[in-house]
């Protein structure tokens, strides 16, 4: 996984000088100290710990997240450090977890809950769709829902049935929710801190194939950067896509687990003399129309990439938005590379299902380059 070439502040252009300076300082310090490789999991873990340190109202609960530290170890050490009252296991009941989080948020806390796997979040769907998403609206703004629902999602790890769903469309289709998905180690930290600080409910989708990927990242610098942005009232990742790789000929629009695939495709295309820009959506809701359209207007061609089945998907929504907004800049129809409209395959078959470099490059090739 390669780090972003540009920072989030360049991508969204609305970040203050203070934040820009902090980012710069962070980068300088990182260079001087030579940051060590950090896993995506460690970045999330550090973000959770920092948020708990900063706000006594932040409480974590879910299945096996206490003593064990979660099946992916994202909450490793947090019970020991903050006590069993702030990071604890619940009985096995996802609706119970989500419903209790809603009540705790009503009564002044900031719960961060873990769903063990994507498909095991479905029992919580009623609480998420009927209450978490609607409570603020129903109470005319009187009751905010500062809840983060963490969900390890998507495939690429050879997981068995019910462990590999890309469930983002269900949440993105539910007004009242925000939906975020990081694809880099730095963004894992940044976006988790922002999600916890948000007064809106955030469905935080963690691409599980990235948990143990590493990047040289200075977590102290990221903390400083986050604190400066927060102090300035800014949210550099919510609603802001990032340019993961700059290019000129076509734009690949991807998020979460598909960003690394898109970057690999762009690297392969570069060898053949084609310059592809890669946009990391990061924030599915709210969506960054501006950054995505700026890229497509520049390149004139776009492919949207996502693991989820393509029918009625987030990829479909992005495709429609780009077509509506960039029609006169487009040299070809916007195309999609998505999962097929089938249940997620068994481990030995997932390679046929997941968008891969070849399928992406074939699709790029069909973007009417001749006329």
């Amino acid at each position, binding site marked *: 996984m390669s780090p972003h070439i540009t920072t989030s502040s360049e991508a969204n252009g609305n970040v203050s000088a203070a934040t820009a300076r902090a980012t710069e300082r962070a980068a300088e310090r990182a260079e001087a100290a030579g940051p060590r490789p950090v896993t995506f999991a460690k970045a999330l873990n550090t973000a959770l710990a920092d948020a708990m340190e900063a706000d006594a109202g932040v409480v974590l609960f879910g299945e096996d997240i206490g003593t064990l530290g979660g099946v992916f170890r994202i909450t490793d050490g947090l019970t020991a450090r903050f006590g069993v009252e702030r990071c604890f296991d*619940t009985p096995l009941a996802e*609706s119970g977890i989500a*419903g*209790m989080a809603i009540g*705790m948020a009503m009564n002044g806390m900031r719960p961060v809950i873990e769903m063990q796997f994507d498909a095991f979040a479905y029992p919580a769907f*009623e609480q998420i769709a009927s*209450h978490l998403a609607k409570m603020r609206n129903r109470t005319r703004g009187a009751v905010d829902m500062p809840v983060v629902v963490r969900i390890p999602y998507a495939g690429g790890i050879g997981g068995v049935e019910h462990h590999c769903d890309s469930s983002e469309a269900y949440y993105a289709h539910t007004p009242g929710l925000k939906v975020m998905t990081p694809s880099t180690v730095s963004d894992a930290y940044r976006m988790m801190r922002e999600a916890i600080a948000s007064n809106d409910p955030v469905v935080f989708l963690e691409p599980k194939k990235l948990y143990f990927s590493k990047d040289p990242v200075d977590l102290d610098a990221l903390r400083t950067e986050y604190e400066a942005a927060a102090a300035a009232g800014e949210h550099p990742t919510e609603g802001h896509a990032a340019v993961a790789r700059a290019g000129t000929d076509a734009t690949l629009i991807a998020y979460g687990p598909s960003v690394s695939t898109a970057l690999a495709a762009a690297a392969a295309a570069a060898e053949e003399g084609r310059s592809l820009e890669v946009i990391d959506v990061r924030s599915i*809701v709210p969506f960054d129309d501006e950054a995505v359209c700026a890229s497509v207007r520049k390149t004139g061609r776009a492919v949207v990439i996502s693991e989820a089945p393509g029918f009625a998907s987030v990829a479909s929504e992005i495709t429609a938005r780009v077509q509506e907004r960039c029609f006169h800049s487009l040299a070809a129809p916007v195309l999609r590379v998505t999962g097929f409209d089938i249940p997620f395959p068994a481990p030995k078959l997932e390679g046929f299902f997941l968008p891969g470099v070849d399928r992406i490059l074939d699709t790029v090739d069909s973007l009417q380059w001749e006329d």
Partner: protein
Amino acid sequence: MSAVPGESQAAEAADLDSVCRHFGISVEDYLLPSRGQIQIVDEGGSLRPAEDQGTEPGHEYPLPDDETLLKAYEQLVIGRRANDQNSALVRQGRMAVYPSSHGQEACQVAAALCLGQNDWMFPTYRDSVAVMAKGVDPVETMVLFRGDWHGGYDPRQYKVGIQSTPLTTQLLHGVGVAHAAKLRGEDTVVLAMCGDGATSEGDFHEALNFAAVFNLPVIFFVQNNQYAISVPLSQQSVAPSLAHKAVGYGMAGERVDGNDLVALMAVLGRAVELARTGSGPLLVEAHTYRMQAHTNADDATRYREDEEVTAWQAKDPLNRMTTYLKNKGLLDDAVTERIAAHAEDTAQALRDGLNQDPEIDPLELFDHVYATQTPQLAEQRALLADELSREGDAK
């Protein structure tokens, strides 16, 4: 033994074992509901002898004091008046729908009055009278049914959840409120309500189990009005009673005559005290009857006989309480008149509030969805604003 109700409130927290030791009974005897319903005042309005109230050792319920009973009675009269006023307003087209609790008012009143200032209540669509009795303004309560917004009051101001329609989902919110309070060291008690049919839902199970496992001060108050729309209780559950369901969670269950306001005040009053001192959650099942159709849109004659309804008329909570308090010498003409006047004030407030057309601002539709507005909603809001202004110009 210090933390048992009736003794020091500030004493150290009790737990299930110490509660059982205090009552001198086994855990099984504590958890299991009494063999029958607790009834203190019978259908005719007479006080039952103590040995005849359905209580058992460790399940005794002292009679609430006169002042408490008179206050509750006043709310009972107001509640009945409000129910009937609201049904009339539906017939007059002033409200879209009203699920009346006519016949269940004793449950409604007791649910609200057993709680202290800082205690929370989580009601259902059926529980408007309880919401008002907890102190929410009557017209604010009716906003949900008037149809100009989904809820009309700030839950935090009144410590009352928004009346919930997705069955038993609200019980978990009650569990969460209690959990947060416990983590902060506050002695808040939560009373979370649902109907008999709703006890079949998964969230009922999850809420009871969570409350028990985390030892939270939550009273689950089930109004068993015999029907879930058209489906009778016998098709929901074959448990000996709904109160028995508590035992499986390690929680005490009790059943009470839901048309006996005195018994309800006594049983819920003790449950709140126990919960506040650390006993963990309790389940109280009240046997009552939905005297009217599920809502104005329902036709109850399709699934139940008139004779059944008539039989329950004789058990009416209001008549019984009036007789009891009169015989007790607590209700002279002056008191009766004062209470009737208060009930009429509420009815008048409801008429005044609901006969007015509410001010509607279509643009508000976008304003509360998110704490931090999204560009997409800002765009859609502008679109509607433009439409509205062009409509305005055309006129």
